């Protein structure tokens, strides 16, 4: 079931939580809503589910307007950030709840519950209470409960926010597989870029209540539409400069810039992996620190007359040869994005 959201707005008092957001997710897609905390992602998700009423704008699910439809009639599966499992019910009762309230016959219900528990690797936990489960297990119960009534749409609010990093990665992969097996359209909210880019077919970046950019992960990564996007994705260096003959100078480092007239003031956004450092006796920059981050090395340097810059290299990269704190280096910018200076 496809989702079309048009011009959605929501205020809480004076605070504009969602500001004219329009987005679209095709049937069968797994989409991520990515953005900083407090940016309005969860509010959009709740408005799609009908848990929150929009001030204006429309929500279409499967081609039909649902703005006046109650949450319980939207056939939406919702997974809450803190699971929201029914604490006084066993795993079995939790998963069967959506079927019980819809008066599904007992034997049919039992079969579906068992099927879901098996799918979620929860067989044997039927009689446990939520407080007797680990975080990952609770998350899977929450998913099983949301999926049991066969929703057309699955919405997940920070689904892996409350479990530790390793379980998070595992659950993520597992969600991807699950999504591919079931005929469902899904949106999950996250503030974790890696999670969004690695799992989703489509990434929608939301910040300060607005949709900054949406598209396939690779497009978002490689073609940031705005300065915000260029800075938001990955770790970036930012410099202000002026274009002369197709080149912007950052200290003595020349950065090629296309599409700007001579004399225009530009803001350059240079990602930490779009740089090459090499040892050079009279180079324009000095290395300060080298941080060893497992498989990567982060090098902090400063460009004379321009300020700090950092780059990341694979641990064994030949680019690191001879580079040590205190040495002078040359810098080659392989890719810089320039935006008109605001």
């Amino acid at each position, binding site marked *: 079931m496809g989702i079309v959201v048009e011009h959605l707005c929501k205020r809480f008092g004076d605070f504009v939580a969602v500001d004219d957001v329009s987005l679209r997710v095709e049937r069968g897609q797994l989409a991520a809503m990515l953005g900083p905390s407090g940016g309005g992602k969860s509010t959009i998700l709740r408005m799609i589910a009908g848990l929150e009423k929009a001030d204006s704008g429309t929500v279409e699910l499967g081609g039909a307007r649902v703005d006046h439809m109650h949450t319980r009639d939207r056939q939406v599966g919702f997974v809450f950030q803190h699971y929201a499992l029914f*604490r*006084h019910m066993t795993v079995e009762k939790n998963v069967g709840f959506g079927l019980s309230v819809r008066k599904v016959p007992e034997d049919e219900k039992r079969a579906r519950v068992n099927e879901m528990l098996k799918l979620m690797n929860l067989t044997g936990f039927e009689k446990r209470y939520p407080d007797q489960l680990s975080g990952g297990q609770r998350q899977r119960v929450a998913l099983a409960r949301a999926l049991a009534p066969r929703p057309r749409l699955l919405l997940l609010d920070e689904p892996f926010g409350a479990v530790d990093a390793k379980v998070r990665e595992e659950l993520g992969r597992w969600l991807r597989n699950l999504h591919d097996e079931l005929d469902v359209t899904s949106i999950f909210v996250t503030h974790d870029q890696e999670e969004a880019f690695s799992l989703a077919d489509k990434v929608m970046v939301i910040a300060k209540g607005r949709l900054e950019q949406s598209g396939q992960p690779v497009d978002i990564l490689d073609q940031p539409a705005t300065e915000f996007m260029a800075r938001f994705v990955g770790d970036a260096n930012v410099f202000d400069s002026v274009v002369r003959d197709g080149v912007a100078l950052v200290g003595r480092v020349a950065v090629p810039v296309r599409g700007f007239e001579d004399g225009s003031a530009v803001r350059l956004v240079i990602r930490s992996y779009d740089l090459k450092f090499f040892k050079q006796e009279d180079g324009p920059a000095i290395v300060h620190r080298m941080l060893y981050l497992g498989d990567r090395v982060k090098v902090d340097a400063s460009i004379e007359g321009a300020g700090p810059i950092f780059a990341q290299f694979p641990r064994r990269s030949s680019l690191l040869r001879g580079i040590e704190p205190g040495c002078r280096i040359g810098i080659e910018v392989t890719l810089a994005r320039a935006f008109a200076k605001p």
Partner: protein
Amino acid sequence: MPDLAASSKRPPPWALRILVLTYLTIFLFAPLLALGVESFREGALSLWQGITEPESLLALRNSFLLAAIAVVLNVLFGIAAGLVIARQRFWGRALLDGLIEVPLALSPVMVGLAFILIFGRTGWLGPWLSQFGVRVIFSFPGLIIATLFVTVPFTAREVIHVLSEIGEEEEMAATTLGASRWQTFWHVTLPNMRGALSCGISLTAARALGEFGAVLIMGGAITGSTHTATTWIFTAVDERNNGAALGLSLVLGLCSVALLLLVEKLRARAHERR
């Protein structure tokens, strides 16, 4: 080793313990002990006669009936207040939340007097009610009103607290799963209130049994009619009717202890299921 040096200057840990124990001994254990010892000296027969004399039985019946009425009405009110104050958003909600606790702070005697101003013979509603033969002051309805006033916070407070702490997500989850309002209330909200309600019931019953000032003023402690266990103990002490005074005190004391133990147990259980 600066830590060790500092700790040697501190009073030893048992000093505070002794202070707490002394305090409790004076104000809690000693009176209970006295009650027990004096009852024993009075003798079982005298106590039994004191408890079973007609006025005592009437007073006990009144007290237990009032406790039962207070429990039933406060459970209903507590659920409603919880849903309104912990779940709805409206102007003045915080004020209402605070007002519910007012009866804890007010003197029951003062409140009794205030109700007399409303329901008394020359009060605001008294003359109008008497046209229909309804008498509130110095009759059982007066006792009910007095008891309800002093017990109103207990259940409501527990329910509001638990509902706010648990939050609305479980109820939202039930809604997304297709539950109607009623189904959500019955299968999700109410079970989550269970612990709070049990605690509230015990506290309400204990408070209702123990109330004195408000029921004295509004009921008038009329022999053969509006005595409660507490007002009858008061009168019996006055009349040197030791059997009745000690006997009823013992009954009330045992009821209170039983209710408090029940509260503790329910609290512990509610805590487990978090």
